[in-house]
């Protein structure tokens, strides 16, 4: 009997205890999680290898937990990003948050201010003033010089931007060469004396061809890749399309006389069989990689991580030396300086990014829980969020080590003994390249609503060659002068640009192609025809509109 009473008392007290616990738990759980929908395109070269929905990644789960949000992601199928986005806008069936750079007028004609007018997105000015985005505001308070890159001509703050925090992150693309072949040629060039002028390029390309290293030494994947980021036309001091000249005015490369010299040089290379003819056929990334890995190219343009790093990973995998962070045997890709005409000069072109690199994510008018959406998006700009986006979670995807243990060309002393080094979960994934494996834990390898940290870049550079690449590219280009500030157009301006520039682009691409393949002979008369054609199509009007927008940007302090 007594035993029963005791047992009963025990059961009752346990029940009481449990109810207390559950009440406390309810109190702790505070608010209901915010339910949000989020549209974004996955990076098809890195992310889709690891998952089909970002919600399945560790990072997405961590962020949701930290911000108390439940997020449903909508991803467009690969290759249909534009169509699906346009369809979403046309049907006005908007998600709460959209991740797409609407400041890029080819993504949204008229840009951000127009999107506000159209009632697609909301401005964050109110949230900014009312403390709904405290971390974003604090971030720009700490970097006031970048604020003009965030605010539009009309004073709208609209987005959660992708920020390249350190200068070193601004250049991640450039010319590369098969340095192992170059050194075999023994023509006076090596790692420490790289071909840096157009005439060096000429010499080296011919030497590659004569030595039979490959049939077509220079690989360009499309017409536009010949002028990508104005790397080659930049040697002649002109841009491939619009750029800022030394006085800070907008110019259009093809209307400059120096552009003709550039075209003439490329034509010589094409005629002499130094350029892979497939530039006419628009190769994709996979075909570029295949050409490079199967020794079909000696010089080409590509990225540091997704290009060079991935090729090395592939080569190492082929050779069975995957886990070693050593340059693979028999294949070495090496950065070339951005070329110039005179030795020792610096190119005015090459780099391509502002610190506020892209307008990443927006809250739409369809969002009912603006506070929740702000909380979710603002997280990336907090110290904790920035670390998570760049490195993941301590103990799982990274560990703190002393910076001196990293073999890095970048000065990491600021990190002291707290350098966040990615763990083997990323670096030693047996089935995936580092660029792929890290997609589960971070987003710094592509872009997103957070500041990218230089410490991330160092992780990525597994190979010694990569370490030298950034120095070469940064050291050879002084591009900030030629880079356009972020421009905003009025509705009338953007309509006019849209109707003029489609034809101008077509005409330019077509005429340059004809010059290059020889369908039209390149001489003073045909060049004058080309110039007149551009004028007849209204290139001067386009320049006028763009110059006015640049002036507004200067007034805003955007550059």
């Amino acid at each position: 009997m007594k035993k029963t009473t005791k047992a009963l008392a025990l059961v009752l007290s346990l029940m009481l205890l449990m109810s207390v616990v559950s009440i406390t738990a309810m109190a702790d759980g505070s608010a209901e999680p915010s339910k949000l929908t989020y549209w974004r395109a996955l990076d098809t070269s890195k992310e889709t290898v690891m998952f089909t929905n970002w919600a399945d990644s560790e990072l997405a789960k961590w962020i949701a937990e930290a911000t108390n949000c439940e997020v449903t992601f909508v991803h467009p199928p690969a290759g249909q990003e534009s169509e699906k986005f346009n369809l979403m806008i046309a049907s006005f069936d908007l998600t709460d948050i959209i991740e797409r750079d609407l400041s890029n007028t080819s993504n949204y004609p008229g840009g951000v201010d127009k999107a506000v007018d159209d009632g697609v997105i909301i401005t964050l000015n109110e949230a900014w003033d009312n403390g709904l985005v405290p971390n974003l505001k604090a971030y720009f308070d700490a970097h006031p010089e970048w604020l003009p890159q965030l605010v539009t001509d009309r004073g709208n703050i609209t987005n959660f931007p992708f920020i390249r925090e350190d200068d070193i992150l601004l250049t991640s693309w450039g010319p590369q060469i098969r340095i192992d072949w170059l050194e075999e040629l023994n023509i006076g060039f090596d790692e420490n004396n790289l071909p840096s002028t157009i005439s060096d390029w000429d010499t080296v390309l011919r030497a590659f061809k004569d030595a039979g290293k490959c049939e077509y030494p220079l690989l360009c994947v499309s017409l536009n890749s010949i002028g990508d980021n104005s790397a080659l036309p930049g040697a002649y001091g002109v841009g491939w399309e619009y750029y800022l000249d030394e006085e800070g005015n907008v110019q259009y490369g093809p209307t400059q006389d120096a552009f003709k010299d550039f075209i003439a040089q490329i034509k010589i290379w094409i005629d002499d069989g130094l350029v892979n003819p497939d530039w006419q056929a628009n190769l994709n990334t996979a075909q570029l990689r295949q050409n490079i890995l199967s020794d079909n190219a000696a010089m080409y343009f590509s990225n540091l991580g997704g290009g060079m790093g991935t090729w090395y990973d592939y080569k190492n995998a082929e050779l069975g030396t995957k886990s070693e962070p050593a340059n693979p045997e028999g294949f070495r890709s090496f950065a070339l300086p951005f070329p110039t005409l005179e030795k020792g000069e610096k190119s005015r072109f090459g780099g391509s990014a502002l610190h506020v690199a892209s307008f990443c994510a927006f809250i739409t008018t369809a969002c009912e829980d603006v506070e929740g959406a702000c909380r979710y998006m603002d997280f990336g700009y907090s110290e904790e969020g920035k670390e998570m986006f760049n490195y993941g979670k301590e103990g799982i995807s990274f560990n703190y080590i002393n910076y001196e243990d990293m073999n890095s060309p970048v000065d990491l002393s600021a990190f002291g003994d707290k350098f966040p080094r990615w763990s083997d979960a990323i670096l030693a994934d047996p089935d995936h390249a580092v660029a792929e494996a890290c997609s589960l834990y971070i987003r710094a390898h592509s872009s997103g609503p957070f500041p990218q940290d230089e410490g991330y870049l160092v992780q990525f550079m597994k190979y010694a060659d990569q370490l030298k690449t950034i120095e070469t590219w940064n050291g050879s280009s002084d591009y900030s002068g030629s880079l356009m500030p972020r421009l905003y157009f009025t509705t009338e301006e953007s309509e006019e640009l849209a109707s003029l520039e489609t034809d101008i682009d077509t005409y330019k691409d077509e005429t340059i192609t004809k010059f290059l393949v020889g369908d039209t002979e390149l001489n003073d008369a045909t060049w004058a025809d080309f110039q007149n054609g551009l004028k007849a199509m209204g290139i001067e009007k386009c320049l006028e509109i763009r110059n006015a927008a640049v002036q507004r940007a200067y007034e805003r302090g955007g550059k």
Partner: protein
Amino acid sequence: MAQSGAVIRPPRKNQNYLARLGRNIVKHKWTYMMMIPVLAYYIIFHYGPLYGVQIAFKDFNPGKGIWGSKWVGLKHFISFFKGVYAWRTIRNTLFINIYLLLFGFPAPIILALLLDEIHKPVFKKTVQTITYLPHFISTVVIAGILVDFCSTNGLFNQIALMINPNYTKVALLGKMSLFRTIYVSSDIWQSIGWNSIIFIAALSGVDSELYEAVAIDGGNRFHRVWHVSIPCLLPTIVIMFILRIGNLMSLGFEKIILLYTTGTYEVADVISSYVYRRGLLDFSYSFSSAVGLMNNIINFILVMTANAISRKVTETSLW
């Protein structure tokens, strides 16, 4: 049926159309019910969207909706024709379509006639299956294969090099003179089997006594085809031809934009690819609707004309 009743008992004056229809519906309710899905399909998917055609005359803004957007009259039509490349794209659309008509239209008929002469069922079925398989491959994949085959190190260049060792490799898709050939021949390859099905079906309905009559008259195979098969196919051919004429001004942009390059714009840039670059990528919904509407009106006129001519000349017509 209903008609015979009407003959016996002429309609009374007070019996209007609706009353008669009502009676007819009651009488044949199952037949009418079976028609509902078809009617619904046309109303929902073909007549309903006609409401949206008005955006061709407006500056459509999704935020304001179709009704709320501003009327701009013929602005978008004028803008299309004022474009430097308007006539070039019209010309290219017509050219490619005429080539498709010249070479692509007879091809399935010839295939059907040839297959009809084969009396080994196994072989016939195999050929049929193989020829219509490409129809099921998506355009993107076909274009991908073509781009690979036509590149400098692709299959076609390799074959040419094997035949003639002095041959210099070229990027075939970058050659202006080859674009239409590649486009049209790949189109024939992809569609020949599928398009031949209707002709094969028509041929299978030909009375075998007609063939026997040819045999009795001492005709050979060629006579059989010429005097029996083709005349029996003619109504089908005419109908298909009229339908084809109705598409003379339209050509999908998918395959074009996957295959064309800056070097081949001159011959490859068609209305739809131009509209794709100008309209879809730039969100000019109204502009693309205007061009689409213009295209359809021209196609409509073409079908009407072809039908009228055919009715006069051959007595076969769509309606």
